[in-house]
Structure formats: structure tokens, C-alpha cells
């Protein structure tokens, strides 16, 4: 029986004055598991995911990664996790190789180890030929694939993926799926948020669906379909979450304070 590599208990995030973005979420992810975290826009998925790595400060609750309390062992936790975010955020006038070298050094890897990782990862995401081109010359799919490779430079135990195939064509999506599946087969724990139900159904062993700041259902895709008498995961999603558009909360975590103030 695999141990729990992510343990979340009663996680709460409240934004002033009283916006409850996450309301006491509890779940575990097992080592080596492919875990899907789904929910409509504004459900609190990204906030929860960001709290798992302390990018957003939790209001209360507990998060343990690989047995370590996150807010007390940040550097140790950061050595164990990779994070491919919604914003790809690359240095436009740096090459893929330069960026990977920099990240390897910032993770304090040895030069030989960095070189080996660069070779392995660029091959994995099929970007060896453009390793020495500026990232600004990459297509959207190439940027996503490179960002995935970059998040793996330190060979993390857990990979967080926040909508990794958003805005990609079906071919690029299939490519990314293949890469992620391979990583999971090699034993890496994957924590995925996505809006593509087919993606979640194909990739995830276990899924939690979140709505209005709480987890509304949890289980394997087959279990969820059986439990909610649905033909596919999309139907499960629609039955458990309904439409959230009218009540969708504004982004209280918007970067620009002017925008936050206007909200």
C-alpha cells in the first residue's frame, strides 16, 4: 500500500472582507498516483493548488507534502515538487538550454547532473533540435512542452500541473498527455487540474471535483460514473457542480491592486 504523499486537512482560504474561496478541503494523494482536481471556473482549484506549495497563504488547515508540514519546511518541500503553471513564464531572450542550466543551478544540482537532465528532458518533450533557440521563437505547444521539461529539471517526486493543455491543439495535447503518462509510469506523483474532462478521464486514477470551495465528490473515474449514474466524466461534472457562472467570484488574488480594489 503506497503512503500518502500529499495530505490536506481542513484547508481554508478566506479573502477579505469575507470571500470564502476554499472552505475546509480535506483529501490525500498517494505516492505514484495520478490525481485529478476538477471544478468549474472560480471553484477554488487554483487557490487550493497554490496553497499546497505556499504560493497562496492558507487561512487555516494543514498541508503535508511527503510527510513535511509545508509552511515550516518550504525549501525541503520545493526540492520535492515541480510546478507547471497556467502562466508559462519563460525568458523570451534565453534559450531552452540556458534556462534549464539556470534552473538546475538554482536547484543546486551538479553540472554533470544538469547536463544529463537537459539531454533527457529535452528528448522527452521532443525539443532537442530547438534547444539553442530563444524561447520567444517557440509555438504555444512548444512553450508548454518546454515548461513541463523545466519543471522536471530537479527530478521532483510530485508534479503539479495547472491546466497544462489549455489553448493547445489536439495534436499538442496528445503529445503532452503522452509525456505526463510516461512520467507517472516512472513513479512520479501527478496532481493535475484541467477543464478537459476527456483528459481527466484518460489520465487520472482518482479524481476530486470541487465546487464553491468544497470537494463535492471523489473517486476513480469509473467509481464516479457509477456513483452519479453518468455515462462519462463530463456528465458527472455537470451533475455535481451545475452551472456556477452567475455566482462566480471575482479574482481576489488578482496581481494588480488597482484591479483588486475595483472588485
Amino acid at each position, binding site marked *: 500500500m503506497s503512503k500518502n504523499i500529499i495530505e490536506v486537512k481542513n484547508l481554508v482560504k478566506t479573502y477579505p472582507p469575507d470571500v470564502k474561496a476554499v472552505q475546509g478541503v480535506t483529501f490525500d494523494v498517494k505516492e505514484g498516483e495520478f490525481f485529478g482536481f476538477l471544478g468549474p471556473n472560480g471553484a477554488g482549484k487554483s487557490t487550493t493548488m497554490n496553497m499546497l506549495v*505556499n*504560493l497562496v497563504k492558507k487561512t487555516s488547515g494543514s498541508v503535508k507534502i511527503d510527510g513535511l508540514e509545508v509552511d515550516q519546511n518550504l525549501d525541503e518541500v520545493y526540492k520535492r515538487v515541480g510546478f507547471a503553471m497556467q502562466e508559462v*513564464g519563460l525568458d523570451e531572450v534565453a534559450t531552452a538550454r540556458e534556462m534549464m542550466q539556470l534552473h538546475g543551478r538554482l536547484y*543546486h544540482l551538479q553540472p554533470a547532473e544538469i547536463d544529463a537532465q537537459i539531454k533527457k528532458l529535452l528528448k522527452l518533450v521532443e525539443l532537442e533540435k530547438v534547444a539553442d533557440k530563444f524561447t520567444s521563437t517557440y509555438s504555444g505547444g512548444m512553450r508548454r512542452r518546454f515548461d513541463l521539461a523545466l519543471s522536471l529539471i530537479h527530478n521532483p517526486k510530485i508534479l503539479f500541473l495547472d491546466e497544462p493543455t489549455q489553448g493547445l491543439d489536439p495534436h499538442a495535447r496528445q503529445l503532452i498527455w503522452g509525456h505526463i503518462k510516461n512520467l507517472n509510469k516512472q513513479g512520479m506523483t501527478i496532481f493535475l487540474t484541467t477543464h478537459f474532462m476527456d483528459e481527466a478521464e484518460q489520465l487520472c486514477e482518482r479524481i476530486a471535483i470541487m465546487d464553491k470551495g468544497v470537494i463535492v465528490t471523489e473517486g476513480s473515474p469509473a467509481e464516479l460514473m457509477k456513483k452519479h449514474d453518468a455515462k462519462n466524466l463530463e456528465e458527472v461534472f455537470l451533475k455535481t457542480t451545475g452551472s456556477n457562472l452567475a455566482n462566480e467570484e471575482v479574482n481576489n488574488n488578482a*496581481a494588480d491592486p488597482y484591479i483588486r480594489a475595483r472588485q
Partner: protein
Amino acid sequence: MNTFFSDWYYLSIRNIKLIWRPIMALIPSLFMPIFFFAVNSLSLSAFAKVPGFPNVSYKDFIAPVAIFTAIFFSAGNAGIELVQDITGGYLKKLIIMPINKLAIVLAKLVEVAFQSIMQGLIMLVLLLLWGVHFHSGILGVFTIFGILVLFAMGWSCISMIIALRAQNARLVQSMFLLVFPLLSITTSAAPRALLPHTFAVATDYNPVTYIIEAIRALVLNGFGDPAITKGFIAAGTMFVVLVTLTVISFRKTLK
């Protein structure tokens, strides 16, 4: 602490690489000082004959302003780059690395120092070709760069504080407007003795005045002028205060 210096070093190298690509991007901030120096030294040369003006050419008198302006215009770019890192998501990538987060801010200062030295050197060569004479020699040039680098790092901190607080590139860019009053309400164009009294008093409250006067002392007179110490104190105070405020702002952003 053991990884602090390596984190700082590698992030500094990253920043320095990014500002030099493409190298043509450095030209706009040099254009204005070169243009104003050329126009003013040619059109206002007769001003040096006005009674009360020091016994130097107008070209030599305004040369310190040209070097200073080149750095003044570009040092604010650090804030714009920081906004790009924040909004593009790169800062998040850095935050979730096991690095000393202070290195992120200090690496920006190294970038600013490096850029200031390179732009200052280009201006220095142009001024020497134009016939400006530096009375304090090579040691004086090093001293000038010491003052300029301290000022540039301090000044860049204002843009970084705005970047961290507002996270809005347009707002950071608007800081550019401050350059004009700060540069104009000084002794940049005429010695203090020739300025109207009220204006002269106003220049006393502008730290930029002391920096320009210090560089001018090194260009025109050599060492021994008390203006040099005053310039160092002004630049050093700005550096200490503004770097401290930037670090506080950065820590607040992380919380």
C-alpha cells in the same frame, strides 16, 4: 546562507544576459543624453563667458550631466522587468525554488550596476572623443562610477517598489516622468551662483544636485573638493534607504 551567494550569482548572470539581448535595446536610453549634450554644448557654449561662470568650457561643465542622464534614464527599467517577471509567472517559478529569496532582489541590483557601468563607459568614451577632459584621471573615473552605481541602484529601487506594490508596467513606466524635474531642479545647466535665489534653494533639497556636483568636481577640479564627499553621502543614503524599503516590499509581497 551557504547557497545565498551562488543563488545571487546565477540570478545576476540571468538578469545581465537578458538586458543585453538585444544589444540595440540599450541605444534609446543613450540617445537622449547624447542628443542633449551635443545640442547644449554647441548652442550654449557662449554661456561659459557669462561673469560668475567657472573658468571652464560649457562642454566640460555639462559633461557630468550627460553621463549621469544615461544612467538615470535606464535604471528605472529594473521595475519594468520585475513587473514582467510577476505578470508572466516567472517570479512564481523562482519563489517555489529552494533559493534564498533575497537573492532575487539583490540580483536585480547587480544587473542595474552592470548596466550603469556599461552605459557610463560608452558615454565616457563618447565624451573623451568629443574633447572633454577629466582632471581627476583614471582614479577619478572610478570614483565617478562608484557614485553613479550607488545612485543607479538606489533609483532602480523606486521602480522596483512600485513594481512590487502596483504590479503594473504602465505605472512603473510613468516613473520616467520624475527624471525631468529631478534633473532640471539642479545645477545641471548653470552654477548655483547664477541661479535665481528661490531656484538655487530648491536645488539644495534635490539629492541629484549633490551627485551632479560631485561628478562635476571630479571632471573639472580633481580630488579634494568637498562636493565629492557630499555626492557619496547623497548616493549612499539613497542606496541604503531605498534598498531597505525594496527588501521590505519584497518580503511583504511574498507573504
